[in-house]
């Protein structure tokens, strides 16, 4: 039986065949979900899908696009927002 800390369903179970010919189960964390646009919920480009250490090693500019709303809105939503703000401020 797996030890109690390994019974959580947030761990994924992998069947591994060892060089000795035995089959063992390995437990590993699941991958993160892709970042989504805050408005249209489409997956964002330019934002890597990585867990703790994978993200911590990256520099700030490697984790999001270099533009306003980068990492928050997709390109089409951000363009719409910029136009909307310009038109509103002109009134």
């Amino acid at each position: 039986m797996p030890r109690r800390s390994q019974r959580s369903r947030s761990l994924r179970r992998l069947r591994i065949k060892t060089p000795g010919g035995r089959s063992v189960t390995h437990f590993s964390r699941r991958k993160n979900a892709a970042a989504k646009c805050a408005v249209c919920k489409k997956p964002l480009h330019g934002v890597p899908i990585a867990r703790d250490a994978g993200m911590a090693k990256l520099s700030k500019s490697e984790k999001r696009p270099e533009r306003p709303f980068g990492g928050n809105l997709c390109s089409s939503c951000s363009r719409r927002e910029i136009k909307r703000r310009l038109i509103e401020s002109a009134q």
Partner: protein
Amino acid sequence: MFEIGRICMKTAGREAGRLCVVIAKEKEKDFVLITGPKAVTRVKRRKCNFRHLEPTPLKIEIKENATDEEIAAAYEKFDVLKKLNVRTITAGEAKEAKPKTEEAEERREEKKEEHKKEEKREEKHEHKAEHEKHEHKEAKEHEHKEHKEAKPKKTRAKKEKKE
């Protein structure tokens, strides 16, 4: 709509959300030459697809392919930034505008002093290590010489060459 002197806002790319002026029409289809100018709005002088520009109701009087200085003067003359109510300051101004509090300055000075002290400590360590190595070497050489005095002259010649 995108005539020379029309003030637009870039909607796409790194410079999105910043104002620019149309200077000239490019030979390429759909492209115009724009500039901030860079000192005023941080938009570089380059071509841009008009589909990535949003025109504003403002237009300034400039000649085709005007220099950045002339355009900056026109900005002031027509009072563009105030009319459009858009804050576009340069990065340098933004740095200057940050208030340097006394506490922050003290912290900075402390850090500098610590850095200097660490450097001095490292130098001392290096000196000591070098000294020790030097002494070690000299001691070894002494021993060698005592052993090898009895040997024939060839080795001495070799040693002299080495030294």
